[in-house]
Structure formats: C-alpha cells, structure tokens
C-alpha cells in the first residue's frame, strides 16, 4: 500500500485517513495529514530537530497521543514539524524524530488551527495490504 493520507469530511470538524505499507508508515502519514491541516507543509523550513517518545495503553490511544504531542509542540512551543520519521513503533510505544521550524506569525501558508485530536470514530485496520488509520480532529 502506497504511503499517503487524505482528509475526511465531517459535518463540523475534519478527519484524516492515513495509509501505509506498515503501521509506522501510516502513523507518519497521519502526522503529515495533521500538519497539512494546519499549514502548507511545503513552506516548513526543517532547521530544527526534535525527538518524540510516546507511550499509551493501546494502539488507538498511541495514535491520539502521537498526534496530540505534535499539536502540543505547535501550540505551546510554536514548533511546527515538516518532516517526520517514526524510528520505533510498538503496540504501546513510539519513538520518532521530527524536523521543522519555529512558527512565527503572521506566516504565509497558514491554513487553520486544530484544537485537539479526538477519539471519535477512531479506527485502525491492518491486513496484508498494509495499515489504514482514521482519526478526527476538533477544529
């Protein structure tokens, strides 16, 4: 399965469907989707590296916590990621490196603010073709 993401319509908010040959690829694509909702990813300068580690009780929570971590970095630290690499992904833990920049408004390419990552209709499916994740955001 080709690594990719697409945005899913929701009556009030917005969802991300992420696909990958492996769960790690799909997790990377979910993060790319989140960033693409916030701003134009092509405009992000990758001059700063951050390491992220997340733990959770299950894969679903791990996905929500992973994306919430990126959102926290953006909202509290004003760090926006442009490039993402999952280095290790288990059922309950994740380690990633992200490269990006300090966000300084006003900034061209800004799209919209994301309030949070929800558990609403959260789904993760893996089969021989690969992994498909679906997660909804509160805008």
């Amino acid at each position, binding site marked *: 399965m080709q690594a990719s993401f697409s*945005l899913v*319509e*929701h*009556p*009030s*908010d*917005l969802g991300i469907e992420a696909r990958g040959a492996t769960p790690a690829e799909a997790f990377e694509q979910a993060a790319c989707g989140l960033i693409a909702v*916030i701003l134009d990813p092509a405009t992000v300068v990758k001059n700063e590296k951050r390491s992220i580690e997340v733990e959770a*009780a299950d894969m*679903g*929570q791990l996905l929500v*916590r992973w994306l*919430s971590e990126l959102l*926290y970095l*953006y*909202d*509290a630290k*004003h760090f926006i990621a442009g490039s993402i690499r999952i280095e290790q992904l288990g059922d309950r833990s994740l380690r990633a490196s992200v490269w990006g920049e300090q*966000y*300084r*408004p*006003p*900034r061209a390419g*800004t*799209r*919209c*603010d994301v*309030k*949070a*990552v*929800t*558990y*609403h*209709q*959260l789904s993760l499916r893996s089969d021989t073709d690969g992994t498909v994740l679906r997660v*909804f955001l*509160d*805008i």
Partner: protein
Amino acid sequence: MQTNPGLKQIDRYRFLLPTAYRKGMRIEGLIIADETLMAQISRDQTIEQVANVASLPGLVGRSLAMPDAHQGYGFCIGGVAAADAAEGIVSAGGVGFDINCGVRLLRTPYRDTDVLPRLDSLIERLFRDIPCGTGRKSRFPLDPSGMDGVLAQGASWAVSGGYGTAEDCAHIEDGGCLPGADPAAVSPRAKERGMIQLGTLGSGNHFLEIQAVEQIYDAPLAARFGLAEKSIAVLIHSGSRGLGHQVCTDYLDIMQTAMQKYRLSVPDRQLASVPVHSAEGRSYLGAMAAAANFAFANRQMITHLTREAFSAILGSGNLPLVYDVCHNIAKTEEHRVDGARKRLLIHRKGATRAFPAGHPALQGEFAGTGHPVLIPGSMGTASYVLVGTDRAMEETFGSSCHGAGRLMSRTQAKRETTPEELLTAMNRKRILVRGESKGGLVEEKPDAYKDVDHVVDVIHGAGIARKVARLIPLAVMKG
C-alpha cells in the same frame, strides 16, 4: 421532508427518540426542532449521537438536542444531558475540548450613526490589539502564580488587576468564577499552553463582532438589559484556548483508563466517562472548573482590549457587560425530575443555560427577569438576545440553543466558495471583515450554517426561550 423513521413527532417543535430506537438506550431522547430543521439534523449522525448519549449510565430525564444540533464527536453539538450528581457519570467529551467556550455581549453608549463613520478604524484597531489566529502571543503573559490566580478566580482575577469592574462579574454566568476550581488538577502542560494565550481570541469559529441592535421584541426586558434600537454592541466569542483543550485531552485519557476499573463501557471512545464521585471524576471537575475560569478571564481581558480600542477611536471605552454565557460546560444544578428536586450534573455541549425569572441561582438585577441568553449567528447573519422560560426548566434542564449550528462541512464550504467571493458578498452587505486566515474565513461562511433566524424562531416557538432583541453585524474580526 425526509426525517428519521425511528423518531416520533410530538408536536410542531418536538421529536421524541424512544428507548426502543436502539438497543442499549437507557433514557429517551428529545430533539427540539421543526420539520425543516429535523430534515437537516437527519442528514448527519446527530440522532445516533443523541442515542449514544442516552446509552450512558446514570443519566436522568432525556438526552436532549437543541434546534441548532449537528454531528459532533461523541456528544452532538447542541446536546444536553443530566447526570445524577450523586450516582451519575461525568464525561470529559460531554463538555468538549473548548471548555467554557462562550459568548459575551457588551453594550456601548453609541448609536449606529456615531460608529459607522469610524467603523474601519475601529475594526483595524481591534484587529491590531487583540491577538487572534494561530500562534499570536498574549499581551498578558502569566507566571505560575498568575496562572493559579486565573484558574482559581476567573474573571475576578482580571478585575482585581484593573482589567474591568466588579459590575462586570455581576453580569457573567456564575459571577465569572465557577466554584470548585482546582488549579492543582490542571496539568503542567495545560498551564504551559495557557501561559501565553490569556486575552487571545483564537481561530475557528471564534470572533469579535461589532453589531447594531436591529429589532426589539420585548421592550421592557430589552430596556432592563440595556439594549435600545440602533444602539451599538460588541459580541465576543472565545473560550479556554489551548489550556482547556489540553485539560480535555488529559482527562479523556485518564477516564478511558479508569473506565475499566468502574466497569463502564461507552459506544464511542470520545464519550469516556467516570462516576461523578470517583477520584478521577472529582479531579476532572476541579480541572474543568479551572479551565472555565481561564475562559472567563480570557473574555475579560479581550473586553479590556476592546474598551481600550473604543476609547482610542471613539472617545469612550464605557462598554458595560450585558451578559456572558458558557456554551461548553458541566455544572451542578438543582432541577425537578419526576416531581422531586434533584442535584444534577448538567452537561451542556454547545448549549446555553437559560434560567428564567425567579430562578434561585439568579441574584441581583436578573432575579426578576431571567438572565440574557446570547445566541450568536454565523458570520454576516443576525445574533439574538433571548431569555429563558419556565418551560426550559421543565423540559431542557434550563437550557437553550447556542447558535445557528453547522450545516456544511469545512471542506465543502471551501470547495464551494473562494475567499474573494466571500469578501465580495460581505462587502455587498456592507459588513467589514478582518481575518487572519483566508481559508478559515471561508469555512465560517454564512451558508455553512443553518439559518439562525429559523433556529431562534423554533426555540421561541417551542417555548424554551423568548426573543428579546435581534442584532445585525457591522464589522467582524476572525482568527
């Protein structure tokens, strides 16, 4: 009109969702809508979400949806649910991420003719001085002790710092300070997000609008609320910003883990709930009240900046509060259920408290009138001031609608209209628009929402809240 066959229409404005609608429903659902709105509501998952909420344990009365209801995540937006305060549950998702997202209305000494010639300068000044949109930093950065003060005291923290008057607090739901706030229950991460966001508008559907009172429906009541025809008012819509979002995120996780301990299961993980009196439930309610207080203080600081802008451009910053209401909140209130008075935890997710005259919680000037219920419309459309009724107390736990309610997804809104088209349409209506994000503006275009006039006619017709005044926008700033 296509409506859901499982629904039973009771009268022109009420649809009952019987417990037989779906296995697992413990209480009935009730949707306040006419046939037109019901057809719109039936297009998405709102009814399923009303049924999902009705499946939660420990709820009393009915799972309610207001006429502006639309699909949310977990709870529908426009949903109200009452849990027994002793034996029921509390749901972080039932309050939502933007804890105490709400609106406040300021009145001004000006008439439309005073303001129109300076409107451009005024909105420019407001846009310059009030941080909005993504990543703009607060003009009032907090240190840890300041943060604890905000979380514990809400609007009165701002007033004690000189950013308002005691009169302001008398015109805010709960006096601008929710009791039971526990700053220690708010995570360091949530506080960190809030430190740089006090007095910022945010983005999404948050806005500040300069409005004119266009029509009065109840002259004596409008006069008591300080509203006169053609007078200028300011409506501020914002919430608890990243702090509240983080509190909800934190407690959704805590509740999901704790649910196993309490042997609770829910139809959607976003509905994660715990018993009100569990350690996790008490902790959430303390953190939620603290986040609500942050939102009250946030709107107070925005009010201060608004007053400064009016003073600089028009000469007077005398802008008293008409009122300030919460849209996303859980509160302990007393209500009559099956003839007996009960203490209930009322979850309002995109709904407004609407206590009528004579309600014991209303003191001072609103004791004899009921408090103003503020209903913002979508961008470019009207907003309303209503007042609650006894029927709201009997039927909706003293709750009303909170706005127009979304009709169209954000993606569809952007697909259908360009920012230039929207700005031209606003220009034609002679409404000034200042927005940080062009894409964000289009997502909030008027026809992405239901017709607010119709929604308000339904809530008025259903006897839940009465119309007092209609306001129209002159200028709007959005994040």
